[in-house]
């Protein structure tokens, strides 16, 4: 297992009022993303635990691209990864933002 941590400045606050959301399952080639609205509006944080060791630079690129596209300000992402490919990671992160921006608790 490898633990990775990323801090980013976001252009703006993520929409919606939900406090948290979760998407995905930890399985081979899959991952879960728990997203929580716990940070100041301009900040974004990702804590990743991955079964695939040695892919820090790939995560760095995927995360930077994600923050640039979705501006997830105020959100902390906690990821448990079972060795997902970068495209799956991008999809799950996008789903997590979409979920927490929905109406609901």
């Amino acid at each position, binding site marked *: *297992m490898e633990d990775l941590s990323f801090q980013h400045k976001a252009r703006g606050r993520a*929409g919606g009022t939900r406090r*948290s959301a*979760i998407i995905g*399952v*930890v*399985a081979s080639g*899959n991952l*879960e993303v*728990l997203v*929580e609205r716990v940070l100041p509006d301009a900040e974004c944080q990702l804590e990743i*635990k*991955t*079964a695939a060791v040695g892919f820090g630079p790939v995560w760095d690129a995927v995360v930077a691209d994600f923050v640039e*596209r*979705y*501006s997830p300000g105020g959100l902390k992402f*906690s990821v*448990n*990864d*079972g060795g997902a490919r970068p495209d799956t990671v991008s999809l799950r992160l*996008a789903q997590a*933002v*979409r979920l927490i*921006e929905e109406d609901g608790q």
Partner: protein
Amino acid sequence: MTAPFKQPLQSAERVRTTSFYEASARTRVELLLDAGSFVEFIGPEMREVSPHLKIFDLPEQFDDGIVVGRGRLDGSPVFVAAQEGRFMGGAFGEVHGAKLIGLLRAARDITSIPVLILFDTGGVRLQEANAGELAIAEIMRAVMEARSAGAKVVGLIGGRSGCYGGGGLIAGCCSALAVSEQGRIAVSGPEVIETNRGVEEFDSRDRALVWRTMGGKNRRLLGAADVFTDDTVQGFRDAAVALLGAIGPFGLDRLKAEQVRLADRLRSFGTCADAIDIWAAEGIAHAEQVPDLPADQFISLANQIGRTSRDAR
């Protein structure tokens, strides 16, 4: 900018069309219960993860592979637990088991709220061997205590990991079971039997053999499952509502009736070498065609056979 997403289907339509087999544990719970009624206990944000997986350098899941909580079914309160069959095969670990035990004990203490268990499991999580085995024993005890106190415990089985190992034992303790064709129920899985008894005993690569032995159709025809449903969340929802309405009180008489039912079953079919022999012995014409029957035709056939455990369990 947020990319455009397809609008989600309206809720009722989603319940009707969503495959129970394909859905995640969370989606099953969300769609099975009345819309918006589910409240989770010990949710993922509490991060009650397995204390054992780290030792094996394996990834954790925030809910340890089981979603538990309360909600409403057709307007009435229910407790619900759903295993996630894709995380470590839905296997029972220490935390995973403790969440289900707590739910069952709440049902025991309240007595009027039934429990729905959405099984999707290969059995005990091998990395947590002793803790997992203990969890199975404690869950079985908790099921019987809840039932003795008056709470109904219904198992719904239609997930990709089936219901194997200790999960099969717990299912055997429930008040009633609903199953789809994909929802296999057994204790030893195909590979386990083949490894221990040889390929002549059970060829695990013979998928047709696996399905007709452990699959939902045979379990329904044997009376091990009370209701057979098509693989939709709506089907399981309807089955759960029907079973909760049909289950009678639990006591010594019912246990004795269950013993009689199982002894009868063994007497009637103990010498059968294959599920097809059992179905033929039950009087089903063209027994060899049962695996190919579509769900609606199979359900009417099963209702004619009528072998359920209405008075037993």
